[in-house]
């Protein structure tokens, strides 16, 4: 089996050469860090991944979680891994010092997560979920809550979860019905059903802390009545004793992929003894959740890019070793067959995968650096990074998720019949990567968010800032005659985007709300392709500079390989926006006109 699942060289290229994260250490918040520290962290992430995560990738797929006597058992290594991630300081890596964290830039934390995800997505989800749930408590909880929950969550001994989804409320969280009834005891009595909750019960930890959305009795209808609660599986009595908190496991689901981590159905408060503790103010739950969602959503994009990266390296290795067929120019059948990596069509598939993986990773780290600068800047600069991050989050979540599936599919295709068989990991990657357009908001919902909300946010300010950023990159590229063609193509693409956006906004102006967002998913796709082209041009500028400084040997191959992938993206992927633009500008309405009876046969 292939040993490589990520390119360390590329990861460091992005962090240091493209995003220059060391510059963050000029700000007091990050001043204790250095490039050396960042590199040691990445090296350690890679080591942990190679030793502990990658070797059990397949095992966690076959030995799935089981539901036995009301509890979920998972792979026996999960406990050890949670300890390792806890003791290693990974769970609280980007929390502030006063909470016991390391104040690491998100870019470094997410780069490490990319490595973990690529090595074994299921295994890495446990600690990152703990981190996400802890973030909610840290941001909106009381000091008592922080003292009570954070140390154990950071240590990896208690699992954190995000419990939003209910049978009747997935995309439409406005419709949740889990209720919270106030009591005099400083807690609420919780009752309801939650489904699909990741890691919501397992034997790799001693307790589970659900960050749960519910409605306080009498709260307004819709999203305005949703509150956030901490609901531990075992609550902590004043004596320190852990007492079962009436959170029952009703079952687990059997999934297509990503099988090493359970998704659980919870039955909350069957005996009216489930206590929930309100986080922050009543009725603000969804807005709290969404403030934290950016990181979670970027995580999903990283998961997709990570799996696609592992699939790419597995495919690459195979194509270098599989002899099949001869060159088109070779007519002599007695000559030995060539390795398939020599066929143009195979190289096309490999280039596609690399373009998706490295383009996605670049956009994701771009978002992470926006979050890092937002944290340390003030005033207008802070606002700028915050707007850009909000605008791009649906894109950074959805492009890698959707294209990751196609990327892994092409990786599988490189192996021919073996791609479809379990002798090779491609079939597992193909199943594993499929989750990403579904959880943390479906692609459809993100499309509607981008077009229906983000583009017009603050009078369209975020959108204009984005156009400026992309334009600035295109202008920077002018310095290099070799990049002039792609710089022009990116500028044309921005014109197309503005044109499409303007005609869609016109539809909304005319009051046709349904037609306006009917093709929002296509709009998101178009936006995604342009954003990845932008990231590739950004990388190409850095590479051109490096090649001017005379890179040699291994480095020259690395840079030239990337430049070829960059050209691939502009020649093969970017032109796809033209078809999308044509459809989007047509305002066809055919999907609205279609109706259920017409689907009858």
């Amino acid at each position: 089996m292939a040993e490589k699942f990520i390119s360390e060289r590329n990861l460091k290229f992005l962090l240091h050469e493209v995003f220059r994260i060391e510059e963050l250490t000029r700000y007091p918040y990050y001043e204790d860090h250095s490039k050396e520290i960042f590199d040691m962290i990445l090296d350690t992430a890679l080591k942990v991944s190679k030793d502990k995560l990658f070797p059990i990738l397949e095992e966690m797929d076959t030995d799935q979680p089981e539901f036995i006597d009301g509890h979920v058992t998972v792979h026996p290594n999960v406990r050890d891994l949670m300890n390792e991630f806890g003791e290693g300081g990974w769970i609280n890596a980007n929390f502030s010092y006063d909470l016991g964290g390391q104040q690491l830039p998100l870019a470094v934390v997410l780069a490490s997560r990319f490595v973990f995800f690529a090595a074994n997505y299921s295994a890495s989800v446990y600690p990152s979920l703990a981190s996400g749930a802890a973030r909610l408590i840290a941001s909106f909880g009381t000091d008592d809550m922080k003292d009570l929950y954070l140390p154990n969550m950071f240590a990896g001994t208690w699992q954190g979860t995000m419990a939003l989804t209910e049978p009747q409320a997935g995309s439409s969280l406005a419709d949740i019905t889990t209720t919270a009834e106030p009591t005099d005891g400083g807690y609420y009595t919780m009752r309801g059903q939650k489904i699909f909750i990741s890691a919501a019960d397992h034997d790799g930890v001693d307790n589970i802390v659900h960050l749960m959305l519910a409605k306080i009795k009498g709260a307004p209808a819709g999203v305005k009545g949703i509150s956030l609660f901490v609901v531990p599986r075992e609550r902590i009595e004043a004596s320190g004793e852990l007492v079962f908190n009436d959170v029952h496991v009703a079952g687990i689901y059997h999934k297509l992929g990503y099988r090493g981590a359970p998704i659980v159905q919870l039955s909350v408060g069957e005996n009216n003894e489930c206590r929930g503790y309100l986080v922050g103010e009543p009725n603000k739950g969804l807005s709290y959740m969404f403030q934290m969602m950016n990181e979670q959503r970027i995580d999903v994009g990283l998961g997709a890019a990570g799996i696609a990266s592992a699939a790419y390296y597995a495919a690459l290795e195979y194509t270098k070793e599989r002899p099949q067929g001869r060159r088109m120019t070779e007519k002599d059948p007695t000559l030995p067959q060539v390795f398939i990596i020599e066929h143009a069509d195979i190289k096309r598939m490999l280039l596609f995968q690399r373009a998706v993986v490295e383009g996605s990773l670049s956009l994701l780290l771009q978002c992470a650096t926006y979050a890092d600068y937002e944290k340390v800047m003030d005033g207008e600069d802070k606002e700028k990074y915050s707007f850009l991050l909000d605008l791009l989050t649906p894109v950074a979540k959805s492009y890698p998720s959707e294209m990751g599936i196609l990327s892994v599919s092409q990786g599988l295709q490189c192996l021919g019949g073996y791609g479809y068989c379990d002798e090779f990991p491609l079939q597992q990657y193909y199943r594993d990567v499929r989750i990403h357009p579904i959880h943390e908001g479906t692609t459809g919902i993100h499309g509607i968010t981008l077009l229906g909300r983000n583009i017009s946010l603050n009078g369209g300010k975020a959108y204009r800032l984005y156009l400026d950023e992309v334009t600035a990159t295109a202008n920077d590229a002018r310095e290099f005659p070799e990049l002039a063609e792609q710089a022009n193509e990116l500028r044309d693409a921005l014109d197309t985007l503005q044109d499409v956006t303007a005609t869609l906004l016109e539809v909304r102006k005319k009051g046709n709300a349904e037609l306006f967002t009917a093709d929002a998913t296509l709009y998101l796709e178009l936006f995604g392709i342009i954003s990845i082209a932008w990231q590739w041009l950004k990388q190409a500028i850095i590479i051109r500079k490096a090649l001017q400084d005379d890179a040699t040997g291994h480095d020259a191959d690395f840079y030239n390989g990337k430049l070829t992938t960059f050209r691939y993206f502009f020649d093969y992927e970017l032109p796809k926006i033209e078809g999308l633009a044509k459809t989007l500008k047509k305002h066809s309405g055919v999907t609205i006109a279609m109706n259920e009876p017409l689907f009858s046969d």
Partner: protein
Amino acid sequence: MNIVACVKQVPDTEALIKVKADGSGIEEGGIKWVMSPYDEFGVEEALKTKEKFGGEVTIVSIGPARTMETVRTALAMGAEKGIHIDDPALYNADAYATASALAAAIKGIPHDIIFCGMRAIDDDSGQVGSILAELLGLPSVTVITKLDIEGSTAKAIKPIEGAQLLIETSLPCVITAQKGLNEPRYASLPGIMKAKKKPVEVKKAADLGLTVEQKSTVAKMSPPPARPPGKIIQGDDPAAKAAEVIRLLREEAKVI
């Protein structure tokens, strides 16, 4: 207890090694450098010993500037301080010169026990620990998989073909670590941040009062011979082809 662990920076086991055209060594471009895996066992045992008996762990390493990363890695795992001997005269030095430099550095600091890897995975010489012990006038126990310290006695298990030896010696001594001794810990993120502030002295051979003397030199490095191509047995008669396979396995490959 004053504990010393000697570490060497070597190319990652997964690095693609290319021998330089002139045979003077390997191409270093694009190589990732790591702590030699047997030295990791040594560092881990040093840390465990400290955790049990108290004291300090000092890391000693020889090599060019990049070697500092490996020293810092050991500090991030939990060692207290480091000595980095950076002298061109010692780059790619033989086992004797290497051991002399380590001995010169260690002589100057208190040492109750010294850990080395049983060999470095780059030059595979496996001599440094023993020469170091000799130069310091200390006993050494090599290639061990278990260590217990009681008072001033070290009891070590050394596996040999078909058996294992329990070897006792007195402290101070030199121990060389074999796989199985322990499971090296990973650097933790708080450890990595602390490592930056821990003291590392950088020294030249002259600072240690050492004149570098080599007992051997690598005359030439050459890549291993290319693997001979596979053989395809031609013919139409399956029985004859099978017989030929058996003959080749017996006479050429000598595996049956």
